[in-house]
């Protein structure tokens, strides 16, 4: 009834993409820390873990792409135009869509940065 259906849903969708970045980042950090400490040793590399982490990256990027697409669609819904500042639920939805899309883009870029480190650097020293 009324508020229950979409209470906070828009806000949760908004932070979903950066949350995926955070999860991916923590997973990479934990993985390389454990590989260096327990498996490869301080003179080794993370080469063994790399395919797994790249797989994780692919999944994360796919999920973020999907969220970003949803956001983009919401932003374009019904031909609304920027700056989405009308006092209607439709414009509020478009605004949240735009913000979701932008955050998804930023999260994807940040994941790409993380992945660069995984690909280019691998030493446990």
């Amino acid at each position, binding site marked *: 009834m009324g508020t229950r259906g979409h*209470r906070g849903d828009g806000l949760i969708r908004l932070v979903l993409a950066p949350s995926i970045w955070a999860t991916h980042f923590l997973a990479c950090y934990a993985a390389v820390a454990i590989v260096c400490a327990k498996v490869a040793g301080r003179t080794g590399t993370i080469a063994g873990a790399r395919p797994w982490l790249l797989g994780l990256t692919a999944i994360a990027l796919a999920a973020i792409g999907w969220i970003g697409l949803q956001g983009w669609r919401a932003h374009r819904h019904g031909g609304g135009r*920027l700056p989405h500042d009308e006092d209607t639920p439709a414009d509020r939805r478009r605004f949240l869509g735009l913000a979701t899309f932008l955050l998804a883009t930023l999260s994807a870029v*940040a994941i790409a940065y993380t992945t660069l480190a995984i690909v280019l650097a691998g030493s*446990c020293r």
Partner: protein
Amino acid sequence: MSGPRTARDVEPLAEAPPEALQRAQARRLLAAWETPRGLRYWSAVNNTEVGVWYTATAFAFFLFAGLLALAMRLQLALPENDLLDADLYNQVFTLHGTVMMFLFAVPIFEALSILLLPQFLGARDLPFPRLSAYGYWSFLIGGVFVCGSLFFGVAPRGGWFMYPPLTTQFDDGVGADIWLLGLSFIEVASIAAAVELIVGVLKTRPPGMRLNLVPLYAWYVLVVAAMILFAFPPLIAGDLLFELERTLDWPFFDATRGGDPLLWQHLFWIFGHPEVYIVFLPSVALVAMIVPTFAQRPIVGYGWIVLAAVGTGFLSFGLWVHHMFTTGLPAISLGLFAAASEAVAIPTGVQIFCFLATLLAGRVVRTASLLFAVGGLATFVIGGLTGVMVALAPFDLQAHDTFFVVGHLHYVLIGGAVFPTIAGIYYYFPLVRRRMLSERLGRVAFWLAFAGFHLTFFPMHFSGLLGMPRRVFTYPAGLGIDLPNLLSTIGAFVLAAGIGLVALDVLRRFRRGPPAPRNPWKAGTLEWLAETVNVPWGVRSIPEIDGRYPLWDQPNLVRDVDEGRFFLPDAEEGKRETIVTSVIDARPIQCLRLPGNSFLPLLAAVFTGGVFILATFHLWWPALISAALAFCFVIAWLWTGTSPTPEKETKDVGLGLRLPLHVSGRDSVGWWATFITMLGDTAAFLSLVFGWFFYWTVHERFPPADARGPGLLWPATGAALLLAAWVLTMAARRCNRRDATAAFHASLCGGAALAVAGSAALLAGPIEAGMDPTAHVHPAIVFVLVIWTVFHVGLGVVMQLYCCARRVAGRLTARLDTDLAVTTLYWHFLALTVVVTVGVIAGFPLASG
């Protein structure tokens, strides 16, 4: 549950109410909101009073820490100077950093937000005014305690990040304890403020202020408060471990007994790096309010700024290791954190481009406020660029712990936080004190501060690159750093002159001076509804909002608000009230009764402070008595102030809208506050769990092969009993709804008994196994996790018994069940804590063999 009851787009009353009625309404509002006089003034909890005290106190600490900086600069002006000896210099720089970060930068955000947020939102006050007051008094007591230590020569002297083992093994004084306990106390107050502000932004917006119409300041407040909620708990967890090591010799950071000093660095910087953005974002938020006003147009790229705020909030949690590049972590770990450190420049840059675009697209009115805002941003950009440099691990290896870093961080913090805050002071002084500050003095102050700042901190990059380390009390002549240091000292005094002018002007106009016109800057946002005389009620009536700049977009808004044509123009019952709305579209769902003035928050803060201060000097019995008194005052405050029984179901708030006076469960602000608090609490708990796994990674085997563990029997028994107590608590809620009083009391009391038994069983694990927490870090971390859980179970039992008492007293009924809803929610989190604790201390060693 209660649904929304309003049609969209309510129009104000077509006709103004008769003048006699308007006067009577204003009289009743004044009676409800009047600020007490005389000694009772200090019982005030209204945001208009607490916010001013908070801001003034934070500013006073800022000036104090500024004087410490001048003392340091005098000492460093010449080589081999002997103005301050090494020990005093250590105390001065430690206190300078500590006070600036913990007693100015974060509190000034809380202070300005408590002061201004209700105005931005057209609310009468934030939802928990007494919590704000409690937070303020805690801040004042803790701050005076920490600063005062300098005058007894016992101030902390280990640097503002207190690295062990320096501070655990080579520092006998009480300085480190003052730092740990004084600041833990203030951190708790910060978390209280964060909870208040999050609930404020989500639930007390005016009707119609949908998420796409929220003033940008409120977006930033939401992000920053959420960051505080997850950044401060790791530090509180670290403080706990640290103090246990100093007081009881539990070896968390002692490598000889299995501990690791690096754990402190992790916990400190998981707090410390987000902290930089916790300091920076609120100041940018002020700029986001100031720039559109002086550009005379709406902000360009509202959605992009929201992206920047939320994005920075997230990414800032992925940077902490860049403070630890030189600690010998694996190169790949450094790479990950360097990458994230570069990525955060993107959202940070986006908002600056939005401000520039707004200024370029508008017709700019030049004021002292805008000068400070723009000068601050320019300075911040330079600090950001050197930030990109030190984010690269190879460069950082050279620059680490030199004056280069000192220069960098002051560009970021003074450019990003101090100058914009001064811009905010010039901008909002007319709103808060109804008088204008001097434009002419303001410009002089700006140029002095701006020139002085760059003269102070720019040469530091060079002295740093030439090899001058941070935190040395003197240096020999002839290293090429004499001139940069002398310039820095001269600059520091010019900067101080600028800041001093601002302070003088504020003092001069605080009580007297020409009155400011209404909305002197012709701004478009809601806070400028403020009337020209100081009235304590916030807004005369709570408007319906149709746009981002209501004063520009909605014709006659000021008149309609003033004449009481909108919501809640009256206080018929003589109670303090404001409107609670839904999170997404701000539909009115409740008329919230706010608690009035009271000395209880002050008393509770005094005795909570007593616990921390007395514990610093190991006065255990007085500390315990103080804790008991604090507990009694908190219970008295809750009992008399929260969940009042309304005299009727609903209330007519005007314009044909009737709202319930009480809502329960997920619609109530109390439920939200508990949920948010428990998120923070869980973050602290998970930091301790992180500690366990950190030790697991640094040891060949953890727990060590020969270690005695708590076994499986006692922890599993404890978990079973505690989970049963959780189930009974949930059952009590059902019984309460069915009005089955006997079953309700039986479930809750049974739950409490099981909880006590479960705690005993949890404690029995390590005790029966004869684990000695001073012998090795493994028993120490097991004990910490168990004690943390048992302490929380204790609070859970208090809440269960409190609900029983409320029910007996008739203050908790089948319908008015917020207390019970909150207790149940708390127990959900408690169940999670129990499962994780037992899983870690008993399950993990079993699973990993």
